[in-house]
């Protein structure tokens, strides 16, 4: 049986400020990544930070070198994305209950991706097929269905770092591990505790988290916690 998941927020919605911040503030911050004076020092980033540059490198689509433009367009529409995406695209912060509602066309595209994933030898929509923005759309869409997400994660890992956004692979793996009853390994998943406060979902080996996050192009752990509005664990 597959479990239905809530829609993984878009890049704009992923910018989650400390609990008191409003959604409007979050969107404003995305458009202008300049650190805001009232944010805590550890909750800011610069375009020159390594993880931001790494994402910018992957999501640079200036060469327009994807092969299936119609599929790309359909994927972007189904995920509610507009290309080009500006780095940082994924902050690796997913708070349970803060998911947005999927666009109307998402369900049909999830069904199409499920069929594709089940077809042996089929071409998975990787960067060279649908562009970097297309791969991010795929990551968002597959997160709606656990069974599809599992198959997609395998395809994305198999395709390698040049074809799959490592930051999305990491976020998806964390999300699935929690669904499977295991602990997350990157620290991208948050929940609300009994007192309503945002807290980090169970995680293993947090002492090496920043090594893994650097490898995946995620921001430092401290920044992730800050953005989720979570207390330090």
């Amino acid at each position: 049986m597959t479990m239905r998941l809530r829609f993984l927020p878009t890049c704009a919605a992923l910018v989650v400020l400390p609990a008191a911040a409003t959604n409007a503030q979050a969107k404003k911050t995305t458009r202008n990544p300049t650190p805001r004076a009232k944010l805590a020092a550890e909750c800011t980033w610069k375009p020159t930070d390594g993880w931001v540059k790494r994402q910018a490198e992957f999501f640079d689509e200036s060469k327009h070198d994807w092969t299936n433009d119609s599929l790309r367009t359909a994927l972007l529409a189904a995920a509610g994305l507009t290309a080009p995406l500006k780095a940082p695209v994924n902050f690796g912060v997913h708070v349970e209950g803060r998911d947005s509602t999927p666009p109307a066309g998402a369900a049909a595209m999830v069904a199409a991706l499920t069929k594709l994933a089940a077809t042996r030898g089929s071409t998975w929509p990787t960067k060279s097929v649908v562009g970097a923005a297309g791969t991010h759309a795929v990551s968002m869409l597959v997160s709606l269905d656990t069974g599809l997400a599992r198959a997609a994660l395998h395809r994305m890992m198999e395709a390698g770092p040049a074809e799959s956004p490592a930051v999305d692979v990491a976020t998806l793996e964390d999300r699935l591990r929690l669904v499977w009853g295991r602990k997350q390994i990157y620290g991208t998943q948050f929940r609300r505790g009994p007192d309503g406060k945002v807290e980090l979902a169970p995680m293993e080996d947090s002492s090496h988290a920043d090594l893994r996050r650097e490898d995946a192009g995620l921001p430092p752990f401290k920044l992730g916690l800050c953005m989720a509005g979570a207390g330090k664990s």
Partner: protein
Amino acid sequence: MSRTVSLTLELSVMRISIAFVGAASIATTFPLSLDAQRAKPAPEKTTHVSLASETAGREPKAFAPLVGSWVITKDAGNNVLFIDGRVWKRGQPAGGLADKARELYGARNEDFIESIKAFAYYPIAVYKGLDNFENGEIAVRFQMIGGTLDRCAGILFDVKPNGDYLTVRYNGTEDNVVLWTFNNGVRKFVNRATTPTPLELGTWHTLKISVHGTQLKSWLDDQPMHDYTLAHPVSGKIGVWSKTDSMIEFADFTVTPTSK
């Protein structure tokens, strides 16, 4: 005490193994290959490869890193061998590959280099202290640190002068132990242990193999994983193995060669 020595002759694609009794007489009677002449006799005792005198931040001295970025690092104050997948680049052998291959295989290193390049997705570091492992046990402790695509820790063995080898490895993204062969630039799945074994990152575990003739057994944390009959007896160098962007710490590499 007589000792059985297996001499392998490579004739095109056909491999002929000849067993002799009495190593001393062979050395004077037959024109041995350069590798056989250079081979150190296998001690019949457990060798624990100590990294204590190695320098953190440098490449290991006890192992020859041929693919990947292998460095000595500290874990709880002790030196460990770290494969750093963060700097993994597709198809890149380790720096100084030609020199390292020459050190391991003398003049006959061209085939070795070509094969290693073909397998460049798979970081390997060859143990320098034993030229030929045929029978016995090899064990290593490992700790998975990370890797977005892979989290693999393996024992490398049967490393031939042409770059072919075998590995028994644990994969933390698949939770399984698998035996793979690498021959003539082709990686082939051989046998998967039936028990899926999820391991937590940041925890130490032990992978062990035993080889007796063509019989291969493996264990993960003392749990039996493989009991498999190989196509050929094992004869070659040994070491540690990993895959693409894996970040793994290795420690306590031990080898116990036996005569049978």
